[in-house]
């Protein structure tokens, strides 16, 4: 029997598969395996001891892990929701602007160009208790007498990190939602106004359903790269003070490279991977649903 010729799409997608298999899938299988071993970098022999779910049991029993997990989910929930709201607000402000829209749109993209590590550095500098511009401003304006320890107090540090995260990603939402607003036909809005809708009703029942898929595109793009918060936290506080801003990802890196406990870290990494996948699949399905709705209506 002659081997069937590979069809065109398979052939075209083959290089992508090969690279992704080599760099992502196979290594992930390896890390799945090693999450069932007590593997330590310093003792290579431990790679071959199989201990079943002991690593998972010990991370699920660990309070530090659950704190980091909860903090990560909290940060993501707060950040994504605020980014969406602020992005929507920003997009509407820019859309309403009568002059200089091009310039405004360009300025709006500004934070997108900053790598997370730069965002982290920038906010670390601004929130520095001694030389930071935030404290300097508060003191110069007479709003505060003493230096506020932004990155030294646990709660404040969490706030500072959220601020950095939101600053860096709001523009993704704003840009895509703005694209939606600009692509929207004007007739339905006028029709709604003629029919006597209040501005809120117009927004809720006419504008929002049209713009929603664009918001979901932004959400999906964001959820692909949700772990970028690692870079921000790494440079701003490195999980400190005393683990008060530890996220899942900084905990993984500390366990793996600080304590050299690879097996345990891989178990945690799997939890983080599943978390990311859940986020992405959720928004992908929302996006697909919104797309169907749009397809039906427009």
């Amino acid at each position: 029997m002659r081997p069937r010729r590979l069809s065109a799409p398979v052939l075209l997608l083959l290089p992508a598969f090969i690279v992704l298999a080599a760099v992502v899938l196979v290594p992930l299988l390896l890390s799945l395996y090693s999450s069932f071993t007590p593997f330590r970098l310093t003792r290579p022999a431990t790679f071959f001891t199989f201990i079943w779910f002991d690593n998972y049991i010990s991370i699920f029993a660990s309070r530090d892990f659950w704190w980091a997990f909860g903090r990560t989910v909290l940060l993501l929930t707060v950040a994504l929701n605020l980014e969406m709201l602020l992005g929507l607000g920003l997009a509407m402000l820019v859309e309403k602007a009568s002059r200089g829209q091009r310039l405004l749109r360009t300025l709006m993209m500004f934070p997108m160009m900053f790598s997370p590590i730069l965002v982290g550095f920038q906010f670390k500098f601004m929130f520095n208790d001694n030389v930071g511009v935030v404290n300097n401003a508060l003191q110069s304006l007479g709003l505060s007498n003493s230096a506020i320890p932004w990155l030294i107090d646990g709660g404040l540090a969490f706030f500072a990190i959220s601020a950095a995260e939101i600053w860096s990603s709001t523009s993704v939402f704003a840009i895509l939602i703005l694209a939606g607003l600009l692509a929207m036909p004007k007739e339905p809005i006028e029709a709604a106004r003629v029919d006597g809708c209040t501005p809120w009703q117009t927004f809720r029942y006419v504008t929002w359903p049209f713009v929603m898929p664009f918001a979901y595109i932004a959400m999906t793009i964001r959820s692909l790269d949700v772990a970028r918060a690692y870079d921000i936290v790494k440079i701003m506080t490195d999980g400190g003070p005393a683990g008060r801003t530890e996220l899942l990802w900084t905990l993984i890196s500390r366990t793996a490279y600080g304590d050299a406990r690879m097996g345990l870290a891989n178990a945690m990494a799997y939890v983080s991977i599943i978390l990311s996948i859940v986020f992405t699949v959720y928004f992908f399905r929302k996006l697909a649903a919104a797309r169907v709705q749009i397809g039906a209506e427009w």
Partner: protein
Amino acid sequence: MMDDNATARFKRRLLKIAHQVGLLLAMVIICLPGIWIMLTSLRPPVEIMAKPPVWIPQEINLDAYVAMFSGVGKGGIPVLEYFRNSLIISVTSTVIAIAIGMAGGYAFARFRFRGKSGLFLGLMLTRTVPGIALSLPLFFVYARLGIIDTHFGLILAYVALNIPFTIWLIDGFFRQVPKDLAEAAQIDGCTRWQAFWQVEFPLAGPGIASSAIFAFLTSWNEFALASQLTRSVNSKTLPVGLLDYTAEFTIDWRGMCALAVVMIIPALTLTFIVQKHLVSGLTSGAVKG
């Protein structure tokens, strides 16, 4: 009646002012951090550290940049080497990722096959894996293969990182090119291959260029993988270099700000070039699905 008119006009004006103020405030928040970094890199350290703060710069100079690029001098960060590494790694991985992504994106845009949407989601999911989680097995594998701290290792990782998103974008751009054009070319005697290069590729060209810039920026900015897979001047990239500043020295704010500005300039220029295409590529792929 007059009164009603007056209040309505007043209300409208008030709304307009609120709108302007809101817009101004938003733009200040967006732009201020970057401007502040830029300004700090130009000021002498005495002014940066001054208590009470000096708001209006008294003295502006380029000392920080001169020190940074004059080799391993004060600060001791080999910025030139890091810059070179970043450039080599980002450019190479972008070229490869675009070549592979173009093939994949074309397959998604032009062919119908079984399990297409599932496959697309699967591709995206490989991108979702957090860098730090992926770095654990890669670190292990790379150490075994002896490609830790090499350009090759990082390039390979970044190609894989960029493929899914590149496919998404390029898929969107090829969809915008009408199918009929290539078909017409084929009827006129082109092969499918010729039709692609002479008709579809030039039309999707700007979009592909902006996907390339996007891939470049992803590699240029990546930190989580680079921080574990690089060790020395051989392959360390700029983001890892920036962290060096915080780790090894009493923080030299001015030097770090200068390095930050050096990092941001290529990103800034490139993003401005692609901004229009980027949005249209993302949305067309997703909405018209």
